[in-house]
């Protein structure tokens, strides 16, 4: 419905009061509650169907000897499949390898490496995407001829082309960045195309009446109009570039990065499942941080210019 936006914004003061949702604080409390619920389900499943455990020792002079035998046995709740939350947290402080630095330090270094690849991939992909978006927005024929291929490109399972890129490019991290860029350029192309087309046609006519060149219309009108769309696509692209970097690292054989950590800890899963879980948590955090940075950049850029998109 194209009319929707018109009507909603034309609403008087009446609806403004209704529209305000729960406060920031209420949301934060709910978020904490949600996390607590997740932990509760996690540990609850282990309590009901996990491995037996016992508490043995003394606290303040009182002897404690407690053994818990779960009433059920679930395959996905064993310590191997679903380690205790505290053992995952604890493993961060333990050495990753004998006599080595602690896992938190190792993973932080690897996350930084992957972030570097993702950032380069993001830069390449965003530039390419923006360029393609501008190109397609100038020519309907180009759009009709190439956009289906841009869409189709995303159905290529990148892990499949990753080995080819890795063999082709001798510099390992650059190959990984290229794979990240492959996932990044798509949302930016589509976002840029939509955004550049979003300029008010009346404003375009106004620019024409000033005898503006197509380039002026692009710079003074279409690109500014596209910024909200661009930032929305950058957010998707940021998380896609992290995914791309991790996937790219898998076949690259580079001994750094979260991808190599995942492969490494997957190999030794039996002896330390919580290390793989810890790596996944760090990977998730990396995705969140990158998207958070894009958000911060957006709110810095958009201050006072347009109403930032909250989501």
């Amino acid at each position, binding site marked *: *419905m*194209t*009319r*929707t936006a018109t*009507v*909603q914004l034309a*609403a008087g003061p009446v*609806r403004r009061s209704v529209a305000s*949702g*729960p406060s920031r604080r*209420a*949301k934060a409390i*709910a*978020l904490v509650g*949600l996390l607590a619920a997740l932990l509760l389900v996690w540990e609850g499943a282990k309590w009901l169907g996990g491995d037996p455990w016992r508490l043995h020792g003394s606290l303040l002079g009182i002897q404690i000897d407690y053994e818990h035998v779960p009433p059920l046995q679930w*395959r*996905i709740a064993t310590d*191997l*499949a679903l380690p205790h939350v505290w053992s995952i947290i604890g493993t961060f402080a333990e050495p990753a390898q004998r006599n080595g630095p602690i896992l938190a330090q190792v993973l932080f270094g690897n996350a930084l490496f992957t972030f570097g690849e993702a950032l380069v991939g993001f830069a390449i992909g965003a530039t390419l995407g923006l360029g393609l978006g501008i190109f397609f927005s100038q020519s309907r*024929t180009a759009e*009709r*001829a*190439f956009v*289906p*291929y841009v869409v*189709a490109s*995303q*159905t*290529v*399972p*990148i*892990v*499949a*082309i990753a*080995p*080819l890129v890795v063999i*082709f490019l001798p510099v390992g991290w650059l190959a990984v960045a290229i794979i990240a860029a492959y996932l990044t350029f798509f949302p930016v192309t589509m976002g840029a195309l939509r955004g550049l087309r979003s300029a008010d046609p009346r404003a375009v006519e106004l620019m024409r009446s000033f005898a503006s060149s197509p380039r002026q219309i692009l710079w003074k009108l279409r690109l500014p109009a596209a910024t909200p769309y661009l930032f929305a696509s950058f*957010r998707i692209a*940021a*998380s896609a570039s*992290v*995914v791309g970097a*991790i*996937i790219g690292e898998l*076949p690259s054989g580079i001994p750094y990065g979260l991808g190599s950590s*995942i492969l490494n800890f*997957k190999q030794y*899963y039996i002896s330390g*499942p919580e290390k*793989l*879980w810890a*790596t*996944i948590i760090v*990977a*998730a955090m990396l*995705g*969140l941080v*990158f*998207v958070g940075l894009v958000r911060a950049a957006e709110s810095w850029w958009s201050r006072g210019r347009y109403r930032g998109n909250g*989501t």
Partner: protein
Amino acid sequence: MTLRRQARARSRDLIPVAVVFVVVVTLWEVVLGVLGVKQFLLPRPSVILAALVTEWATLVEGLRYTAVEAIGGLAIGSVLALVVALATARWVFARETLVPVAIAANSMPIIAFAPITNNWFGSESPASRMTIVAVMVFFPIMVNTVRGLTMVDASAIELMRSYAASDWQVLRRLRIPNALPYVLTAFRVATTLAVIGAVIGEYFGGPRQALGIYITGEATLFRFANAWAAIIMACLLGMSLYLVVLLAERTLIPWHASGARADGR
């Protein structure tokens, strides 16, 4: 717009696509043939086509296996997402807290979870990949469905209120039809995610016949023509799922499809 005119517009849309295809494939064939570039990395189209023919039985077998994973995961994930969205959209508090969480979850590399599900269900079981695919498609579908259910024209809500319509009536006659375009947009994204999720999930282990396993296996043996043939199969799977969604858009939301065309998209 009459059907015939629509058909003509569609075939007009297809001509540039076909031209690009023919030009690129021909150039690829000729340039590689003339330069004699290392054939094994990027084989000529004719070589890939030959691999497609000789490996056909294996490829179809792999495609079937991977398709079951992708479609099964897509089905599970989307049903869950729709149910959760319908259940939470009613309560402002629930959706205003869940949607940001879902958006955040969507920015995490869920695929990193694949070794874990392999451990849960065994790497031979398609349930491992189905779980990954289900989690991957869950978030975009849920977020978009909640948006579609809630981003309803305020005047339309007032209109329903003036008719003293019940919540159920508003849901069925206004919110759900309003959400359909949003849901289908999410499905477009979800179909490609599903195929990628299944194939990449297989990278961490799976039965021999799986497409992802086949691709990595052939690539390590430097049989790139075979690998490319399998990649083409995976692409075809992704594209046909995508086309199914486009077809669903044409039939389920014709008002939106033609509106979009009027917008020039």
